[in-house]
């Protein structure tokens, strides 16, 4: 074989818009989308915005057990049909558009708990038909949770719960670094459920703060959190988690999230103009992440979020 016909290893580095279209098309087959990170930490928000701009609809959204801003934004743009996330909150205040849509009956928010979601992802990742759970008692959530069944433990005979595999069609993750093959490195303190989701999903698309040379990965393989085997596409997106945090590179932007929530609260009382304008400026109008960065406040603004991580 000469060099011209010899196959070469394929780089998984993908443009943001291409990744968004890849995800949108896959989700048209099956609408289960799963998001990495937790609350305001390490959320793949640029990928979410890209997906919204590409025109996703009727999504069933999963996440690690706690989500906030990104899911609320997806609901605000009308992209979500069902939410399978135990806790949806901005932590210091409620998610305005989540509340409005659920109260109006436009979105179904299932009553779930963390072990159901984690157990379902575990079953999928491990390739087994269900995951037993023996730590759910007394909560009204158990009367409504659509993902669990009661079973008899074959060993003790005790009534316990089982959750079937949760198999997202697409999972979005955000990590701090990757090589071109898609080996991910989370440099943040916690990795949440990102590794589990990567193993549980049909397709994994990751945004990273930067693509690093192959040598960085090869010199320290135990530092890789998600091997490239599980990753389908990797996108280098500066500030791709904004307004959530990407430690140790930049802190969460609480002011931005609060201002967004104020617009959501105004929409609850009938004034949707501010929210629509927010969506136009941050989701539909930017043609690139560079446009988004300008819309949010430019390089100087982001330098402040970077400095915030060094304060502690």
């Amino acid at each position, binding site marked *: 074989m000469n060099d011209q016909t010899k196959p070469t290893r394929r780089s998984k580095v993908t443009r943001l818009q291409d990744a968004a279209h890849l995800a949108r098309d896959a989700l048209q087959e099956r609408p289960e989308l799963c998001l990495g990170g937790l609350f305001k930490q390490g959320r793949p928000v640029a990928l979410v915005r890209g997906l919204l701009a590409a025109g996703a609809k009727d999504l069933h959204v999963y996440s*690690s057990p706690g989500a906030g801003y990104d899911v609320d934004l997806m609901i605000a743009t009308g992209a979500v049909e069902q939410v399978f996330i135990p806790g949806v909150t901005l932590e210091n205040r409620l*998610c305005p558009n989540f509340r409005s849509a659920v109260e109006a009956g436009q979105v179904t928010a299932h*009553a779930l*708990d*963390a072990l159901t979601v984690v157990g379902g992802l575990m079953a999928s990742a491990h390739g087994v038909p269900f995951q037993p759970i023996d*730590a759910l*008692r007394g909560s009204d959530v158990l009367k409504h949770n659509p993902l669990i069944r009661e079973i008899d433990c074959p060993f003790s005979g005790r009534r316990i719960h089982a959750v079937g595999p949760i198999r997202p069609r697409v999972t979005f993750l955000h990590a701090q670094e990757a090589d071109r093959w898609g080996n991910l490195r989370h440099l943040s303190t916690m990795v949440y459920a990102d590794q589990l989701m990567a193993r549980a999903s049909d397709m994994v698309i990751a945004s990273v703060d930067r693509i690093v040379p192959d040598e960085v990965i090869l010199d320290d393989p135990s530092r890789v959190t998600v091997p490239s085997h599980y990753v389908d596409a990797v996108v280098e997106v500066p500030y791709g988690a904004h307004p959530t945090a990407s430690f*140790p590179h930049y802190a969460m932007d609480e002011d931005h999230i609060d201002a967004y929530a104020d617009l959501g609260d105004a929409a609850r009382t009938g004034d949707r103009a501010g929210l629509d304008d927010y969506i136009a400026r941050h989701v539909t109008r930017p043609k690139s992440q560079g446009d988004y960065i300008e819309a949010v406040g430019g390089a100087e603004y982001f330098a402040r979020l970077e400095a915030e991580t060094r304060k502690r």
Partner: protein
Amino acid sequence: MSAAVSPLEQMVVVLARDLADGELGAAGAAALVPMAAIALARELHAPNLTVGGEMFFNPLPGHLYPSMLDDRALGRCEAAETFIELFGHSHHGLDFFFHSGLQHDSYGNINLHHVGGTLDAPGMRGPGAANLSYCHTSTRFYVCPTVHTTRNFVEKVDFITIPGHLSGPEAKRAAGLKKEGPRFVVTPRAVMDFDPATLRMRLKSVHAGNTSEEVQRHTGFDLGIRGDVPQTPAPTEEELTVLRERIDKTGTLRA
């Protein structure tokens, strides 16, 4: 002490005194007061208390943050875990945990799902909650909402997100809740505990500046007040100094 004790500082001190050396526990979702209580206990009488069960061990925050799930709040910590380990902790249980919600009722049940209407057609939809296991796999938990009014202290919650004592000993047994459940309810006004026979909430002590009549007036059910109710023991000089100088350096609990 120069400044007066704030209601949140009083809450922190009450909770800290009940945490023992060598225990394992975590702060829960609304972490400000619990995190300060854990840190105060570790500084004063529980140096071997381990913070764990929420994906990190023994954080050393530079100052208090409202959320614990923030790398700034973690500052440095000794080790990090993932949701897989959290799945295990949730089954094995901790020694203590903390909860609060939209509504709390006379048996210590907590609602975070909806107020009014039904789950499918809620009057007001709450955030829900992630961990429903620590409340009954852990040895005990504490209820510590930072407001105390007739709106969030109601006779019966609209939805039981976090089971407390359900409707008493029999219901608890039937549901398989075998641990202590909620031990104390600590609010900015008072400390409540539960009658061991009926497991109904009752007033234990009132914080300085409050009367038992006031606390009852701000509670949507009968607190079983009989005669004089003691005052909550005030923070000692040492407790307050350590809390303000080493834990709450920015005065968040006094804001």
